């Protein structure tokens, strides 16, 4: 169990540092929610499943969603349709992400 905890803490640290280093806003948000998911696993290890569910639902899900929508409100990213693909446009740089080949 100690090994598992150490592994989760390592994942948390890597994700937390990558939040600072990632240039892509959405990728940084995903890394931030990985931190929350790892914390929720630690709560399960500590036998607090109620808190783990709250952390997974609120920390990993809802708060990153609100952050993403808030960043979009500030104009830092937006979705655009280019042909058949959805494009994720960043302010300053363009990052292409294929989400649909229909």
């Amino acid at each position, binding site marked *: 169990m100690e090994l598992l*905890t150490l592994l989760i803490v390592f994942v948390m640290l890597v994700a937390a540092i990558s939040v600072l280093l990632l240039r892509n806003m959405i990728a940084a948000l995903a890394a931030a929610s990985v931190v929350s998911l790892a914390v929720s696993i630690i709560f399960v*290890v*500590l036998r607090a*499943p*109620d808190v*783990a*569910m*709250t952390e997974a*639902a*609120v920390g990993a*899900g*809802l708060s990153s*969603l*609100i952050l993403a*929508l*808030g960043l*979009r*409100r*500030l*104009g830092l990213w*937006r*979705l*655009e*349709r280019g042909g058949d693909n*959805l494009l994720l446009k960043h*302010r300053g740089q363009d990052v292409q992400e294929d*989400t*649909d080949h*229909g």
Partner: protein
Amino acid sequence: MVERRSVRDLAALLFAGGLAFLLLVIGAQFVFGSAPMLIGQEILKAAPTETGAANIVTAVVLGYRGIDTLGEIAILFTAATAAGLVLGKRRENARRDPDGGFILVASADLLFPLLLVVGFYIILHGHVTPGGGFQGGVILAAAFFIPLLARPGTPVNHGGISLLEGLAGAAFIIIGLVSLYQGHEFLRPMLEKGQLGSLISAGTLPLLYLAVGLKVGAELAGLLAHIADVEAEES
């Protein structure tokens, strides 16, 4: 400017040092994973017979600390109201996100009923298994937001959401007032305790959690729909 920056650096250093000291003290005093408080043992012993809830956390949240939960709901309501106030109205000429594409649209149709079932399961079994109104409410809000992600611009019935939210909040307070009317304390659990661990047990606690879940779900769904609706300036 240089002086102000050095003052700020000093303050940050002091803060970081204090935080490190605090963490060191906590780490030195408590073994990882052991409970330092004694009141937990008492509640663990008394809660199943006193409230009839198999999930001790629910017994504490709604039975022993019901008025704190009422305060928590009030805090959430205030925060959502303030966020709605700051966000303001949608501008006439604001752009819309494009449709989510085949994968998102298809999986939104698939996920919506599943997430509804999971959300209501977690709310209604809050007194038996881990979970409850807050967690289930967030899942309900997510269930209603995913179709909105797939098809941006779908009209949202904000009046209905507010009505549901108000009714759920009123139901919580009315259950508390009924127990006051019967001569007990405010929000004291009532009705039959039933058999420990069965779905219909623990008296009014499941009803309170249903009210909390509906309120949280409606509140967050309305807030998410609102944030998704307001758009950035055209650049």
